Structure formats: structure tokens, C-alpha cells
């Protein structure tokens, strides 16, 4: 029952704050509501026995990425953009297409309602590993060793790229 309650609470918060993210005029507010969505998704992760990811979600996503967002928003003048039109003129078409998309997605999920039953709270997912963190760690450093290394290149590219784009002009430019 507790699980169900958690799902309802977190799910509602997630959806409502997501809607608020895309309807708010002030982009700072949007960012804060995004934090709401992210935190409630972290809560759902907990309900799904993914404690490690829930922690990462809070620390990296909310604590890192979102703070970066807010930082940039604060860095550049915000006020002016709040006075501009926030929505473009194609929102009707956008709504219709999005409705079709969600219809397609829900249709597929609904079709699988019988097969999609969540198993009992997960038994240790990897043999010989105790907690969820250890399991994720094992997966990361054994089976998924290569992508783990590749991810480092991805981060390097991102760092270099961000610096290149955001650094001040040089004399030659």
C-alpha cells in the first residue's frame, strides 16, 4: 500500500511540475519546477529498488546539472526574456501531434498490460553482490567496461566543447 501511495504522490508531483516547467514564463521558475520533477522521479526510483540511481539522480542531476542551469540563467539577464512571448503560434498543432504521440505510446503499453507485471521486489540482480550500489558497480566495471571508458571521452569532448564555445574572444577574432 505504501508503494502505491508513493507512486501516486511522486507520479502526480512529477507530472504536475513537468507541466509547470513548460508553462512558466520565468525560466528560473521552470528550472525550479524541473527540480521537482527530478526529485519525484528519484523517489520513484527508490520505490523500484534502485537506491543508487535515486542518489545519483539527486546528486548529479539536481545538484549538478540543474545548478548549472540556474547558474547560467543567473549569469545572463533574465528579466528581458520574461517579457517576450513565451509560446509560439503553433501550439495547437503541437498539442494535436503530441496527443497522437501519447495515444500511440499508451496504446502500446496498454496492449501489454497482461505481460507487464512487475516482479516481486528484486532479488539480488547480480549473483554475489549485496546492495543495489554494488550491483550497479559490478555491471559498470565488468560487462560495461568499454562504454564506461568511452563515456570518459564523451565527457572530455563536452568539457573541451563547452570551453571552446564559452571562452572569451581572442585577439584574432
Amino acid at each position, binding site marked *: 500500500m505504501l508503494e502505491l501511495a508513493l507512486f501516486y504522490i511522486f507520479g502526480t508531483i512529477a507530472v504536475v511540475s513537468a507541466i509547470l516547467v513548460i508553462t512558466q514564463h520565468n525560466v528560473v521558475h521552470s528550472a525550479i519546477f524541473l527540480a521537482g520533477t527530478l526529485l519525484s522521479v528519484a523517489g520513484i526510483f527508490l520505490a523500484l529498488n534502485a537506491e543508487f540511481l535515486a542518489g545519483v539522480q539527486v546528486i548529479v542531476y539536481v545538484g549538478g546539472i540543474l545548478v548549472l542551469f540556474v547558474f547560467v540563467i543567473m549569469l545572463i539577464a533574465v528579466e528581458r526574456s520574461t517579457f517576450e512571448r513565451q509560446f*509560439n503560434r503553433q501550439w495547437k*498543432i503541437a498539442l494535436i*501531434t503530441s496527443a*497522437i*504521440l501519447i495515444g*500511440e505510446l499508451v496504446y502500446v503499453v496498454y496492449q501489454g498490460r497482461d505481460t507487464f507485471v512487475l516482479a516481486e521486489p528484486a532479488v539480488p540482480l547480480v549473483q554475489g553482490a549485496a546492495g543495489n550500489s554494488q550491483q550497479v558497480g559490478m555491471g559498470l566495471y565488468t560487462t560495461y567496461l568499454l562504454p564506461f571508458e568511452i563515456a570518459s571521452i564523451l565527457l572530455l569532448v563536452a568539457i573541451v566543447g563547452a570551453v571552446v564555445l564559452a571562452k572569451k574572444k581572442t585577439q584574432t577574432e
Partner: protein
Amino acid sequence: MVRLLWLIPILPLLGAVINGVFGKRLPKQAVAGIAAGSVAGSFLISLAAFVQMLQLPEAELPVVQNYFTWIQAGRFQAEFGFLLDHLSGLMILIVTGVGLLIHIYSAGYMTHEPGFYRYFAYLNLFMFSMLTLVLANNYLLMFVGWEGVGLCSYLLIGFWFFKKSAADAGKKAFIVNRIGDFGFIIATILIFWTFDSVNFQAVFSRIEDATLFPVETLGTVGVVTTICLLLFIGAAGKSAQIPLYVWLPDAMEGPTPVSALIHAATMVTAGVYMVARSAALFDHAPGALLVVAVIGTFTALFAASIGLVQTDIKRVLAYSTVSQLGYMFMACGVGAYAAGVFHLMTHAFFKALLFLGAGSVIHGMGGLQDIRKMGGLRHHMPWTFRTFLIGALAISGIPGLAGFFSKDAILWAAWNSENYGKLLWTAGIITAGFTSFYTFRLVILTFFGKPQYTEHDVHHVHESPASMLVPLAILAIFSIIAGYVGIPAALGGHNNIEVFLGGEEAAESSAELILMLVSVAVAFGGMGTAYLFYVARPDLPARLASSAHAMYAILVNKYYVDEVYNVAVVKPILRWSREFLWKFVDEGIIDGTVNATGQVVRAAGSGFRHMQTGYVRTYAGWILFGGVLFVVWFLR
């Protein structure tokens, strides 16, 4: 010499490279010398190879030289190889021979042009492509030459690119040819798909397997018929048949020797050559053959009737070329490929002669091309006149000259065809009458009568230099004698050329003799009508009496009859030709369709551009729109 086959195309290529790279720094004589010399080399090798081939026993033909495997992918294989048999041997002789003469002629004709070296580089490149086309031993290599000649033709038509009309004409020729090429390339792929090879010998031997490829009866469209129709689309583009002929009259914007070489003697006949080469395929597709015959005949008649009223000396010859090509396809369409190629050969001589003669006239008149403004030139340019007259007699089918024999062979084959043969023959004979009429109209307006130009317009009309007259003389000789290789049985000959090309020696037939007389009568009739119409006008009797007394005397007695005939038949035909066929069908519908297609495509482009609004949201919209459709499609 057969071993040296590869040199035949390579020599002009070398010439093109040398002239293209160093030509700017070389003196003009050297440029012309290199260009003509390389073609002369090819001609000599061709001649030697041809002679050697004749001595080979039948079993060793065709001679095939594979140089390397050009493309190999799985089962797909295309060699870079040449094939020499009677057909391609004859073709290389025509191409290099006429090509050589035109190179020599060009040296005189183009002397004062800027870009002299460029011209010869293009011309040599053309020779390379054309010889590759002719000698190729598979469809794909043939296509390489096919595209190459198109490209060179484009470059040469647009040679005087500072004239907008020339640049446009070049582009039009290229684009229309591409439409034909699409037929060719799809046909090539289908041939591979069907026969597992694109090699001529392999394909032609496999199609003889009657269990796999029975002859598709008329009206069924099987794969062989599809292939043949697609090939014919290609041929129609290159050889200017309805509805893809539109580029040829415009192509006259190019220098006249180019018109003679590419747009009369060689490139435009590539389509006929290709159909003749693919005879084995076409024989299995009577439906496609009928299409070839009908389109060819119709083109012959249609173009000839437009030629009746043209006033530009080169455009008359251009429509005449379209019409003569129609004859060749008519021959192929009734299965008489040999007769078609025979006509191809004689036509190469006399049409090149007529074009070069026209070039000589234009040269002498300082660039004037309107025949209504000429007249009396025979006194100023006696040699041009004499040779031009021989060409005119040859194309009109006057007995004893080359055109007579080959045209007769086609008409006889048409008469004997089982599919609407008599109808084809009738159209052919009318075309012959038209041909004779417009040719002599041209001769009369240009060379006879009073000069219609003033000294103010044209300074000092002069005969052309020897380098231009010698090729004319040689072509004139061939325009007379080339026909004697194919004396029909009805005249006591053996039709050697057709037997040589794999046709059957026709038995002697009195019917053929009668038909021949009819066609001779029609030829003279056309000639006489032209005479009457353009010479025997009330205000000209005195000059008539002096210049062509005998003919005048014969005809003057029938004056009223002819007058009635003029009013009742000739004038309506001319009006019909001018107002309907030329102005309405040719310029209005067909040209209009070509141009309109271009405009529609451009308009579509301008419309589609607006998908690109520059807004991220619109782009996201397209992505999502496509995405939703994808999902629906996958979930169906």
C-alpha cells in the same frame, strides 16, 4: 593490327589531353596538326584492322579484346574490352573517316575563333567517346561512351557561350539527352537482372535460348520488350526521335563543323547503332520493334514537313537530319537493321557534305544564315555549289547517288514488313517527296536567282580556302560512290553491304523495281515542285529560260495544272507545316512541354523551399510529424 584496337580511341584522347593542357601555348597549326594527326592515326589503324578483319575466317569473328576487368562485384562483371565485327568495323571507319575530314575542315573554318585549342580538345575528346561507344563490348562501357559524347556535344554546342542562345541550347541538349540516358541505364540494369551479364556476346547468346526467352508476341510486354523499349528511349534521346528531338534544331547554335560531325554524321546515329547492335534483343520483341518503326516513320514525316518551311540554312538541315534518322529507325523497326546501317553510312557522307557546304556558305557570307537573303551564290562559290548540289541530289534519292540505294533499301524493307508495311512505305515515300522539295528549295534559294543581299550587308562574298574545299570534294565523291556497295538485286546487284552486315540477300523482284520507279518519280516530283514554286514565278521567266531552259520547257506546258496543284496541295501543306506542325506542335506543344517541365520543377523547388522556415519549432514539427507517421506505420 587488330591487336592495336585499343589505340583507336586512345589516340584522340591523347590529342585531347595534349591540346587541353598545352594548347594555349602552342601555335594554331600545331594544335590542329595534333588533333587531326591523332584522328588520322586512328583512321589508319581502323582501316588496317578492318582489312585484317575481312581476311579472318568467319569463325574467328567477332574479334574481342579484353583489356582489364573494369568492375567486378559478385556475379556482376563488366570488362573494359572492345569488340570488332562487321558492324563496329564499318562504324569506326565512318567515324574516323568523316571525323578526319571535319578536323581538317575545322582547321580552316575556326582559324579566327578564340579558344581554338579548346575547340580541338573537345573535338578529340568527342572522337574518343564516340569510338569507345562503338567499340565497347558490353552495355555498361557503351554507356560510358554514350555519356561522353553527350558531354562533348554539350561543350561544343555551347562553344560560343557568350551567345546566350548557344549556352541554353547546350544545356537543353544535355538535359533532354539525360532523359534518354535514364532509359538506357535502367535497361542495362534490367539486362543484367535478366541475362546475368551485360556483355554483348553473353546476352545475345543467352537470348537465343528459346526455352528461357520465347519470342514475345506482338502486344505482350514481357521483360525483353521492356528492355527494348527502354533502350529505345535512350536511342530516341540520342538520335533525336519524337518526342525527344527538340534539342537537335537548337543544337545548331554550335559551330557548323560540329553540327556536321556530331549532329549529322556520328553522335546522333549512335541510337541507330545501338538498336542495330541489340538486334538480337529486338528480334525477340516484335512489340518494341513496331514502336520503333512507328516512331521512326512518324518522326521522318513530321520533321521533313517542318523542314519545308524553315528559313535558316542550318535548321533546314537539322530537321532533315531528324527526318533521315527517322528513316533509319523505320528500317530497324521492320527488322532491316542492315538497311538502316547502310543508310546511316550514306547519310553520314552526304549530310556531312551538306553541313560543311552550308558552313562554307555561312563562312563566305560572313555569318549570314537566312536563305531568303542569299541567292546567286553559285557564281561566287563554284566549288561549294557543285559539291552541295551533289549532296542535295544524293539526299533526294536521285538514281546513281548514294542516297538512292540506301533509301530504296529501307523503303523496300518497309513494303515487305508484315506490320502495316504498306502504310510505313506510303509515309516513307511522302517523306522522300518532302525531302527532295526542301533540299532543292534550299539549293535554289541559296545558289540560284538574284542575290537578295546587298553589298552593304555582306562584304565581299568569297569562296572558302582549300582546307575547307578538299574535305567537301572528298565527301562529294563518297556521296556518289558509297551507294554502290549495296546495289539491290532488282538492279542486278547482290546488295553486298546488307549481306556483309548480316542481312539476307533479297531475291530479285519486279515489285522492287516498280517501287523504285515510284520513289524516283517522287524525288523528281519534289525537285520539280521546288523549282516551280521558287523559280517559275511570273516575274522570273527570263532568267528561268536562261538558267534551266530544258526543265522550264517541259514544265511550262503544264503551267495551269501545276498552278492548281500549287494552290490546292502545296500551299495547304506548307501552311499546315508552318502554322500547325512547326509553330503549334513543335514550338508550342513539344518545346513548350520541355520548357514547362523545367518551370514546374523549379516552381516546385521554390515551393518546397518554404518547408525551410528557419524556425527550430517548425523543424521539430517536421521531425515529430514524420515520427508519428513512422510509429503508425510500424504498428499497423
